[in-house]
């Protein structure tokens, strides 16, 4: 009976316009973002290159110097990026607050702000402004030295004062700057990274992480509509009472419906991942290694599956509970907050719905963050399970009541 219900639900999903739009938007988005020449550009580093990309360093001096460099730029533009509630919030300081920020900066560096500005202009002037690579290198190399004898504890206290001025969720929060500072890689480091990419990630796994980064953005949003549409379908088609009268338990109906939607949502993800992975399997061969052919299943399975699960499960729960489309507003707000709320585009795995990894490689960094990443995904997996259990409970209560728990008999 469960199997029959499951396949019936799959057919139902296939007939849905929302699902069709989901597939089209997902495929168009992911193919437009994953540039076709990534495989061609992936090369072993050669000695003597001008730029090898960046890596993250957690050295205290580097953290202080990098954070103070950001501070000079933020004071100069008076444009402070914060994420107080997970959403982007641009903050502008008053003249008095700006003066206070300058005084804090001067206390850390021992130099007047005007001198720091001149140094900044001098630094960026050494690079070719028309080249994106040069500008990346300029940004990665920009540092502001602390004054002699200035300790990390003093720096932490100073940054706390800055947070007091700009508000919560800025780059000057301890949790943010402790993540580390991006520094330019040397040839040796770049070679080490490349070897890790070949040996540990077997190329395809690294590429699948980049795939998951882009796919994770749309998968935080699109499944909401599939879930809401399906959960409202019975009511809209006026078959809710018929469904309530069926002998199948609420658990069987909801779980089969949920799994059918989940499977149908996952199919385009895995098929697209499989197709996009192929050039990288070939690329791995050119490096003399065998790419991980199953990466299209294993990496998105851990990375994206919990995300799709929780988005879908929550849309089921909210829609069953309210019999409205309110899940669309709540969850779109959550998803957009998660998109804009990432402190960094590589490795911000705190309780974020969307796990960002906007780079091809950085295998060593990923290994160091893997535990946090797995905890994040396990949390969302469990949350999805809880949401579905709650949905079953709500469904059974509605069944006993004979209709909506919230509304009387109006269409919403």
């Amino acid at each position: 009976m469960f199997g029959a219900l499951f396949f019936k639900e799959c057919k139902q999903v296939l007939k849905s316009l929302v699902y069709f739009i989901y597939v089209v938007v997902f495929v168009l988005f992911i193919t437009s973002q994953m540039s076709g020449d990534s495989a061609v550009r992936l090369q072993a580093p050669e000695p003597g290159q001008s730029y090898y990309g960046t890596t993250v360093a957690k050295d205290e001096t580097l953290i202080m110097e990098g954070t103070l460099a950001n501070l000079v730029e933020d004071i100069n533009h008076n444009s402070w990026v914060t994420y107080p509630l997970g959403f982007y919030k641009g903050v502008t300081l008053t003249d008095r607050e700006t003066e206070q920020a300058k005084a804090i900066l001067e206390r850390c560096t021992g130099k007047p702000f005007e001198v720091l500005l001149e140094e900044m202009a001098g630094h960026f002037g050494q690079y070719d402004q028309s080249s994106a690579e040069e500008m990346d290198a300029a940004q990665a190399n920009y540092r502001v030295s602390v004054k002699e004898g200035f300790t990390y504890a003093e720096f932490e206290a100073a940054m706390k004062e800055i947070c007091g001025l700009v508000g919560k969720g800025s780059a000057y929060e301890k949790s943010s700057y402790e993540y580390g500072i991006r520094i330019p890689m040397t040839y040796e480091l770049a070679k080490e990274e490349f070897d890790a990419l070949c040996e540990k990630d077997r190329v395809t796994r690294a590429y699948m992480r980049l795939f998951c980064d882009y796919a994770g953005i749309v998968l935080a949003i699109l499944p909401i509509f599939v879930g809401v549409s399906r959960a409202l379908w019975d009511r809209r088609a006026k078959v809710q009472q018929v469904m309530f009268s069926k002998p199948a338990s609420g658990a069987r109906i909801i779980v089969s419906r949920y799994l059918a939607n989940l499977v149908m949502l996952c199919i385009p993800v895995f098929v697209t991942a499989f197709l996009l992975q192929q050039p990288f399997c070939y690329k791995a061969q050119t490096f003399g290694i065998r790419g991980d052919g199953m990466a299209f299943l294993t990496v998105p399975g851990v990375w994206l599956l919990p995300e799709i699960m929780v988005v879908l499960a929550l849309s089921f729960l909210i829609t069953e509970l309210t019999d409205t489309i309110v899940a669309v507003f709540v969850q779109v707000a959550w998803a957009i907050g998660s998109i804009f709320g990432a402190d960094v585009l590589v490795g911000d795995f705190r309780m974020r719905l969307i796990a960002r990894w906007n780079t091809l490689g950085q295998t060593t960094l990923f290994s160091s963050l893997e535990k946090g990443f797995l905890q994040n995904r396990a949390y969302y997996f469990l949350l999805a399970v809880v949401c579905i259990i709650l949905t079953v409970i709500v469904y059974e209560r509605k069944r006993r009541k004979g209709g909506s728990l919230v509304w009387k008999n109006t269409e919403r």
Partner: protein
Amino acid sequence: MEKYGKVTASFVKRQYFPHLLLILLFVVFSGGFVSFRGLESAQAAKVMEMYVAFAGILLFTPLFMPEQDREIWDLERSKRTAMWQLYLPRILLALLVCILVISLFMGLMVRGGGNFDVGSLLLGAYCEILFLGSIGFFASAVTNQVVVGYMIAVVYYVVNIGGGQYLGRFALFQMMKGEYGSWIYWLLGAVALLASGVVVRERVRRRG
């Protein structure tokens, strides 16, 4: 006239009220998401284009909600009243609320002591937010599914975050880049989509 007033009041009471409530929450909690103090042109445009823009989606997409119910739709079809007569008061109501919301945000930003051209930003914001809302409106009209309307409007918004170059003159978030000339395209697009939405519903009605 009284008839349209009653029909619109019934629409507000039965379907539109939760959306108006959401708009109220959207305004009340805005201080937690956006800052209104001392904004420069690009920052003020960002508040309008990336935050207030959602008001358009919230207000214009659910205007066909009653017709999702087959019984209401059959009843409306059986009457001699043209569809545009039914939808025009709803559109005007959404437009009025939308203008109020945008003006309120503008007032907050002006009070915060910003440095931007109020007239250009206001004109652009009205047109852009109306255009985004009309996308949801039109998608709902064609599919008779409000969820699809929201989906298309939200996808259009998200596509503009990284792929505005593919959308030509109808790309959103132009004022953030200092480009204030797109308002006419947004306005024309909005008028075309709103009118087309009503025409589509009229055709569906006649076809049965």
